């Protein structure tokens, strides 16, 4: 039940886009059609599901104060947490590269769908944001951290597919010229954010 709660919270209550605005750059740039938005959303779920657990292990067995005791008991006072930014981003950048190569080799169909989006993801704030939130919230086990990663990924996918669908439809509406494109997308995202706020405080 704990897992389900973390998963649902990641999708609705603490949605990456509507509650924290993470990954807005690609959210605005790649949401012109549902098809490409779907591809990028799936790639984000995939990468979050892989990098959050890896960063969790890194955090708990290398970076945190006293995390290195498994190596030698005298390391109990070593605190490497100031290195976490550089370690997390290195893990993310290299994982994205690695995942891209593996997918290209073993799942060409998936590569066709996600291929062009994978390199974009290394600099998507939501991936690093996922790692940093994982660090801040101190999940008790790797299973919960992974669930959190997948949940936030699904939340991000939901947000980008929804805005892409709205943008496809809004092309037929009479939007004031200076608001067309970027402006109206911001305002719609704001309204969607207000709608998503109704999930706040839900306990499962």
């Amino acid at each position: 039940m704990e897992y389900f709660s973390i998963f649902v919270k990641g999708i609705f209550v603490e949605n990456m886009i509507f509650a924290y605005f993470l990954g807005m750059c690609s959210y605005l740039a790649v949401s012109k059609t549902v098809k490409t938005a779907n591809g990028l959303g799936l790639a984000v779920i995939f990468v979050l599901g892989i990098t959050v657990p890896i960063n969790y292990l890194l955090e708990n067995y290398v970076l945190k104060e006293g995390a290195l005791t498994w190596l030698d008991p005298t390391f109990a006072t070593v605190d490497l947490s100031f290195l976490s930014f550089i370690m997390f981003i290195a893990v993310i950048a290299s994982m994205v590269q690695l995942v891209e190569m593996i997918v290209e080799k073993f799942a060409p169909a998936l590569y066709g769908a996600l291929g062009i989006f994978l390199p974009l993801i290394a600099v998507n704030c939501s991936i690093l944001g996922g790692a940093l939130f994982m660090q801040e919230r101190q999940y008790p086990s790797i299973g919960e951290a992974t669930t959190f990663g997948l949940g936030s990924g699904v939340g991000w996918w939901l947000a980008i597919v929804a805005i892409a669908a709205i943008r496809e439809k809004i092309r037929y509406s009479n939007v004031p010229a200076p608001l067309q494109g970027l402006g109206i997308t911001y305002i719609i995202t704001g309204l969607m954010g207000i709608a998503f706020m109704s999930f706040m405080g839900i306990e499962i």
Partner: protein
Amino acid sequence: MSTENSAITPKRESLFSKKNRKLLKDPLGDSNPITIQVLGICSALAITVQLQQAVIMSLSVLFVMIGGNVIVSLLRNLIPDRIRIIVQLVIIASLVIIVDEVLKAYQPDISEKLSVFVGLIITNCIIMGRLEAFALANKPGPSVFDAIGNGMGYAWVLLAVSIVREIFGSGAISLPGMGQVKFLPQEWFISSGGFYENNNLMILPPMALVVVGIIIWIQRSRNEALIED
């Protein structure tokens, strides 16, 4: 006078030549990183509830941008093309670690409020975008101007949004070192028999998007060339 100077040092431009001024001025208006280039929005929206957070964030981004632009521009002929993204990320991450440690030491409560968003400067698209688009191809001098211009372009949107949100949301203005200054008299508020009530909607995250949307609206209705079709 100027011709004499240019005769002596023909290749040297003056500090505020037309080109440098353009580098500084363009990102403030017609190629603003947030409203036109759509870069660096992630962090811009989440930390605009209070002015002091926005000021600290703008200064941090400005520092990281200038540092990153200068370092990458100095190393531009040494960085192999294939691994340039990872080199840039490492440079930015090191600068961000400096900012984070300084903030933790001198402004602990603001650092607490900014939480993960200081770390997210690393993936702030403005910085990566300017490194890719400008610093990799230009000398350190112009790169500094480009960094200052884009940093300021980012800063004014941030400050404008946070001023609007803080005035309407909490009826106050806050600056680092001064705390929050409430300038409306207490008896105006409904709670003490007055007529005024803070608009709590403004404090909520979605309103940041709407305020930026309105800034874009104003900017594009003043300059028709920017309108998308």
